[in-house]
């Protein structure tokens, strides 16, 4: 089907993760709006996030560096695309840093579930290949365990 070329179905290049968050929707939304709040939960305990720029508005960026306990650093570069309180935030995640040619579009949807909130994250990758690459490792338990074992081994100073 020549007409389909280049436009893979979004379902083929997305990952969806959801959780019930035990609190009201506005509170969940607020967790994203302020770098002070994000700093509490965005990175695991032991890691640090150093923010250079945080501008929470459509087109604004969050430019930061994540420092992990071992001393390794990762870019945390995000461009906020859509902000619709209290139910939706859309951003582009540049996993390889600012110049990443294939940012991942991420949509957070918050739905009220009684006194709790259902948070659904939809990550749309540039291509099916890129999605599979990201999902493959995470989905494969064995791979994950061996990577964890390796990481622990390295952390143990061999």
């Amino acid at each position, binding site marked *: 089907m020549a007409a389909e070329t280049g436009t893979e179905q979004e379902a083929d290049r997305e*990952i969806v*993760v*959801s*959780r*019930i*968050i*035990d*609190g*009201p929707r506005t*509170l*969940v939304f*607020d*967790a994203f709006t302020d770098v002070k*709040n994000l700093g*509490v*939960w*965005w990175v*695991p305990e032991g890691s640090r996030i150093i923010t250079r720029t945080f501008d929470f508005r459509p087109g604004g960026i969050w430019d930061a560096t994540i420092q*992990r306990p*071992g001393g*390794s*650093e*990762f*870019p945390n570069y995000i461009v906020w695309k859509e902000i619709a309180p209290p139910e939706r935030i859309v951003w582009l995640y540049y*996993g*390889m*840093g600012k110049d*990443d040619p294939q940012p*991942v579009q991420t949509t957070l949807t918050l739905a009220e579930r009684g006194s709790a*909130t259902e*948070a659904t*994250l939809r*990550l749309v990758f540039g291509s099916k*290949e890129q999605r599979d*690459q*990201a*999902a*493959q*490792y*995470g*989905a494969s338990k064995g*791979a*994950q365990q*061996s*990577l964890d074992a*390796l*990481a622990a*081994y*390295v*952390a143990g100073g061999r």
Partner: protein
Amino acid sequence: MARAATTSDAFNAVAEPHRRRILTLLKGRERPVNELARALRITQPRTSKHLRVLREVGLVRVREAGQQRLYGLDARGLRPVHSWVAGFEQLWGERLDRLNEYVKEQEKERSDGS
């Protein structure tokens, strides 16, 4: 040594699809270069080039096994890319769990304060 900045760290090294594919192939077991080239459907020299980049950043190591040189994953370089390799699914699963804890804490403080 002036080396291209694009390949000098593990993150940039895995930005290239062939190199990510090599890591996936080496995840299960060690392989010689010709086998990797075949799986990638690219030439052996190109495969060697990618392997060199991966070795430079400590993601891949090589050992002599008789007549063959076998390439395998190297734990040293793995750590920096661990969270990337672990997959977004897990990253976000864990992140949402922490968000849940954070919100619960906020909610508690709010009700305690009122």
